[in-house]
């Protein structure tokens, strides 16, 4: 699965409840069906590179970028999709 393929499959995987957003800024597998795990791997890899770049560019810690990203991901997840709260997958 290429990154591009993962990107195009991501919206469907999210609305089907296979993948959800986590406070650490990365995708989590809610139910491992289809290529959910593979999509998450590709997308998280791309996100990690982005976070690393932002951390270096601004001279702040990677975990700070990840936690700002995590908050944003949870806030912006539309209703009906999954988010991880206190280690429990919840439907927003």
């Amino acid at each position, binding site marked *: 699965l290429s990154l591009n393929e993962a990107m195009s499959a991501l919206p469907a995987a999210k609305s089907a409840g296979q993948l959800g957003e986590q406070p650490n800024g990365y995708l989590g597998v809610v139910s491992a069906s289809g290529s959910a795990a593979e999509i998450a791997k590709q997308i998280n890899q791309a996100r990690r590179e982005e976070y690393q770049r932002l951390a270096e560019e601004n*001279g*702040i810690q990677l975990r700070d970028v990840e*936690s700002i990203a995590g908050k944003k991901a949870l806030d912006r997840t539309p209703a009906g999709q999954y988010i991880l709260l206190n280690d429990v997958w919840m439907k927003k």
Partner: protein
Amino acid sequence: QQPWRANVSLQEVFLRAANPLADTFSGWPSLLSFASGRLTGQLEAVGSAGLDSVQGQFTLSGGKGIFDRSTFEGLTANINLALAADDLQLVFPDLRLEALDPGMPLGPVSFSGEYRAELANLTGGVLNVDAARMGMLGGQVRVNAARLDLSRPRQSVLVELEGVELGRLFEVYPAEGLSGRGTLDGRLPVSLEGGKLVVDDGQLQAREPGGFLRYRSEKLDDLARSNAGMRQVAAALDDFQYSVLASDVAYDQDGLLVLGLQLQGHNPSLQDGRPIHLNIRLEENVPALLASLQLSGQVSDIIQKRVQERLLQRRLAPDP
């Protein structure tokens, strides 16, 4: 006229539901909101023609909530109230707060003292502090006996810093590659003006035998590549073992902290440990620091909103 006496016991009040304190006291700070807390107590009123005096004992426990942009929890206090003519006195023998978080975890806080004011001017009374302490970064901040007359434009109080650990500060401080060790004590003459805190010629110094400072980051390396002076700084700070660290401290109304740091030490692997005198004038905007800590930390939405509003206002207000 027959003298009368009335005893009233306060039915338990849950501060989360209705905040009776906020409704009754007009001077109640609008930025103080309780998420939980229980208030119990009883009152005794005595009079002949009208009301002569009121005595009351209250107990607040489990107080949790937000004040301005800080969360607090574990607030307990016994409050003794005395009202005679129109002179109100509130005595706090043992106020205690488990934790306070303006962006950096602080606490526990303990306070004992009393507040006296005229009913007509509740916020312009006199606060007598017997003792106040707050845990901070492995050490504590302390205020000993002080008298603050809030009706005057300016109040001043001596704040002492004791045993603050540099290592803990760098753990919380949002910069990569910064580490160190050292125990700091200090004396900060603080004055309050219009609710704003100001420090003039405060003093800060590290205890014997000193400690170390390390700053290793790509940003510093980039600067060092292009600038000889910065190369020397990067070399020194790669592993700076200091014996002396002393600083004067100034903090202005806009939250600008200026430290005049003087360090004496050496880097064992730099010119065979040749002595280095490092003088750093450090400028730090504390509200911006706390705002950025809160932005990156997990904070409640209410604070998030206030942080954004405060930043917006600062950006819109013309620079002084």
